[in-house]
């Protein structure tokens, strides 16, 4: 039977280019995605640093960047948000870790469509190049924020950056949609068709479930954004008026009429809300995996976890209107969207309690991956609690477009997802590169980053309640906000320290990849399939044999077993699912 596997797995790669550049191996592609996202996150972080500096010292001229004018601030925040959401949060957890570990964790030799997998990475890469190009064209990067609301985004003459820069921005997003669709197809087909014998759906690790559900969301959401983007390009370049009513810019009547900016908002947020779950779900999967492993206990409520994720994915498509309470939408639909949004709180709470239940009375091993997983839960709760407030149309009228929202989504979507990525990095680098990362520096990095992110993003809530508007660069000029400038100063200093601390991470990462102590095959004493194979795994993952699975994914502390954990491939012992 081994022949059928090799017949499916493409021949081993020859030569540098086929092995490392245009590789068909899901593991190489995963690492490519990972480093693409790592590059993107440094760009995004650098932009946020510039923004924070500008907020305190609007007048200073910076080396390399020059003057930051108010519209430059808007460009910075547009590119920061877009790069972070698409090229970091959508790229690393799914494209990176998912690509690398989904096939291994289900016992497959590769993805179902290796060529498609390669194309999907390189398409993402092209999208990244296109969006970075927006910085360098005349007029610079666009101003319309990561949400790209028309009319601003639909009119070439609406401001600097809304010319070629905005076209590049939309093109990049459209290319990214195609790449994500290819990726999602591959993830779903692989999970449905290529599970090793015994790997039933209900024995899949929660990481696999989370990548699977994320792929469903991606499959359904990105297609809509693609259409929305095409219509926006038509409005900009063909003179159509899908999104633009009769408008006057600088005293000039534009040639559009009859369109509705609300149409874009509906289409965008139909994609946009699932997108935030695309960002966070893989983090949930990783957190579940790591909490169970390092608590040496089975995950509390495996089935509940699966159903909760499915429920989140399902409801995720029905709540987009909570971003539009202020748009003039009918109050009745606002009520419905508010109610449905509150419903999502239930599965989210189930997950949180299950994570706590997993840690309850456990002999926890506080190693770096575990610290980050706990950090993830902490941020998920802190960011999540402000969600039900924002879901009230009445409160949202006050809080919409203020720093309260910025604080909310940075905690729950931004940094929580980033913590999931950190956890995954510290946990899986030993398998991916065969070397352990440094524990001490890992912990130092964790504590600075945890304290730092709370210091940056918690004060934003106060700022927002006090009326500090989002996407505004001249805080120093507004009288009623002067009292809040000390908060801004605090946040900027915290951001500088936190960003500096990220050097610890990259240095630790690269030093460990090349110099770290050699990792054993199963350094964390985990149970899932990736820890049964060599480190790093061979070309077809399991060296020509296909594993046979006998146990559920989290068999820790099994009574009567020889060790305190039972691998998924061990002969059926203890409880079975």
């Amino acid at each position: 039977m081994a022949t059928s596997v090799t017949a499916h797995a493409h021949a081993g790669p020859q030569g540098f280019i086929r092995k490392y550049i245009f590789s068909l191996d899901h593991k190489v592609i995963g690492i490519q995605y990972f480093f693409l996202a790592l590059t993107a996150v440094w760009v995004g972080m650098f932009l946020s640093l510039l923004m924070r500096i500008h907020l305190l010292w609007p007048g200073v001229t910076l080396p390399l960047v020059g003057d930051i004018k108010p519209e430059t601030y808007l460009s910075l925040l547009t590119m920061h948000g877009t790069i972070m959401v698409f090229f970091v949060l959508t790229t690393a957890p799914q494209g990176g870790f998912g690509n690398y570990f989904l096939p291994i964790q289900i016992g497959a030799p590769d993805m179902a469509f290796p060529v498609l997998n390669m194309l999907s990475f390189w398409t993402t890469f092209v999208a990244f190049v296109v969006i970075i190009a927006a910085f360098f064209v005349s007029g610079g990067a666009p101003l319309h924020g990561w949400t790209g609301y028309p009319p601003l985004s639909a009119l070439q003459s609406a401001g600097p950056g809304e010319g070629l820069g905005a076209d590049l921005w939309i093109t990049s997003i459209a290319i990214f949609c195609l790449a994500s669709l290819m990726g999602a197809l591959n993830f779903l087909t692989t999970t449905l068709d290529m599970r090793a014998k015994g790997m039933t759906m209900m024995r899949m690790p929660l990481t696999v479930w989370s990548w699977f559900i994320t792929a469903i969301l991606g499959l359904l959401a990105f297609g809509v954004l693609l259409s929305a983007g095409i219509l926006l390009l038509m409005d900009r370049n063909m003179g159509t008026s899908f999104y633009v009513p009769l408008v006057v810019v600088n005293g000039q009547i534009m040639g559009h009429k009859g369109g509705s900016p609300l149409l874009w908002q509906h289409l965008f947020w139909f994609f946009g809300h699932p997108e935030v779950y695309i960002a966070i779900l893989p983090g949930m999967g990783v957190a579940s995996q790591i909490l169970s492993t390092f608590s040496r206990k089975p995950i509390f409520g495996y089935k509940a976890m699966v159903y909760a994720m499915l429920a989140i994915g399902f409801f995720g498509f029905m709540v987009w209107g909570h971003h539009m309470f202020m748009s003039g939408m009918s109050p009745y639909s606002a009520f419905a969207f508010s109610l449905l949004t509150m419903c999502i709180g239930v599965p989210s709470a189930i997950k949180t309690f299950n994570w706590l239940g997993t840690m309850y009375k456990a002999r926890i091993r506080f190693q770096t991956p575990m610290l980050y997983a706990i950090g993830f839960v902490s941020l998920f709760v802190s960011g999540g609690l402000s969600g039900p407030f924002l879901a009230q149309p009445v409160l949202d009228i006050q809080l919409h477009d203020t720093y309260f929202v910025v604080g909310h989504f940075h905690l729950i979507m931004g940094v929580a997802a980033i913590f999931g990525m950190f956890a995954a990095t510290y946990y899986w680098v030993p398998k991916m590169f065969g070397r352990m990362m440094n524990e001490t520096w890992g912990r130092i990095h964790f504590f600075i980053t945890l304290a730092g992110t709370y210091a940056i993003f918690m004060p934003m809530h106060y700022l927002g309640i006090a009326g500090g508007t989002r996407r505004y660069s001249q805080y120093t000029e507004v009288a009623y906000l002067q009292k809040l400038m000390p908060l801004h100063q605090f946040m900027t200093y915290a951001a500088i320290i936190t960003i500096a601390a990220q050097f610890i991470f990259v240095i630790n990462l690269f030093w460990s990849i090349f110099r770290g102590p050699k990792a054993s095959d199963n350094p964390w004493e985990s149970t899932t399939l990736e820890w049964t194979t060599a480190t790093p795994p061979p070309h077809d993952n399991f060296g020509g044999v296909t594993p046979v699975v006998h146990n559920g994914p989290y068999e820790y502390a099994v009574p009567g077993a020889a060790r305190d954990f039972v691998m998924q491939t061990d002969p059926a012992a203890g409880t079975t699912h």
Partner: protein
Amino acid sequence: MADATLQHTATAGHGLAGEFEAPLFGAYSKKVGMWLFLASDSLTFGALLFAFSYNRIYTVWPTPFGKDSIINATVMTACLLSSSLTMVMAVFAAQRNDRAWTRNWLLATMAFGTAFIVLHGMEWTKLIHEGLTLPGFPKPAGQDAGEFAKISTGVPQFAATFFGLTAMHMLHVTIGVIYLGVVALRKWFLPILGVIWLGATFLIPADNVFHYAVHALLLGLIVAAIILFLKPKVYDAHDVEVCGLYWHFVDLVWMFIFPLVYLMSTKI
């Protein structure tokens, strides 16, 4: 590469039976992949149709299509329906392992598809001449100030949704014809496509939108070449069935566009 080895990799499919769990939907990977793509694509079209309805609800929608437009669109519909039939025949032939007839039926399907595209292109050109246009289109000489011209300025959404929806669908049909061509003729299809592209670039006058749109064929040519280079193989019954799924889907989408865009805007 010899055709024998090609045949081998082709039939191996996912080739994982025995050591793996049964696929959840009992279908082979390529078919699952295509179904998933179609799910996603129907949302892409769904979003466009949503945009169409959204505009239509809030506007007094014009109903300008006269007899000749409707007859033309009906013939186009007949082409697509017939092409679905020939596609089914191709799949049957492939399942019988009848190479020659698989190819013939696929070519017949492509012929109907091409007829659809050409008829549609002529319809576009005629409407543009009568004044239904977008500000971004090239202006052909002799565009009169008739009913369509008034609609284009009065209810710009009409032309926008018309061209947006049908262009997206036409793009899908074009991709479909190229896809079928690759499955039917493999690398031999590339020079044919090249000739069509070159011929069209020279024949279509510069004031016609298709003078530019035809370069989509070049793009398709490049993508097809890359795919054939990466996966040089003989396509088997599974591949024919999978491209059939795509074709029927494109056909199905037209069955929404035809009534919504044409029939509901017929001159009364």
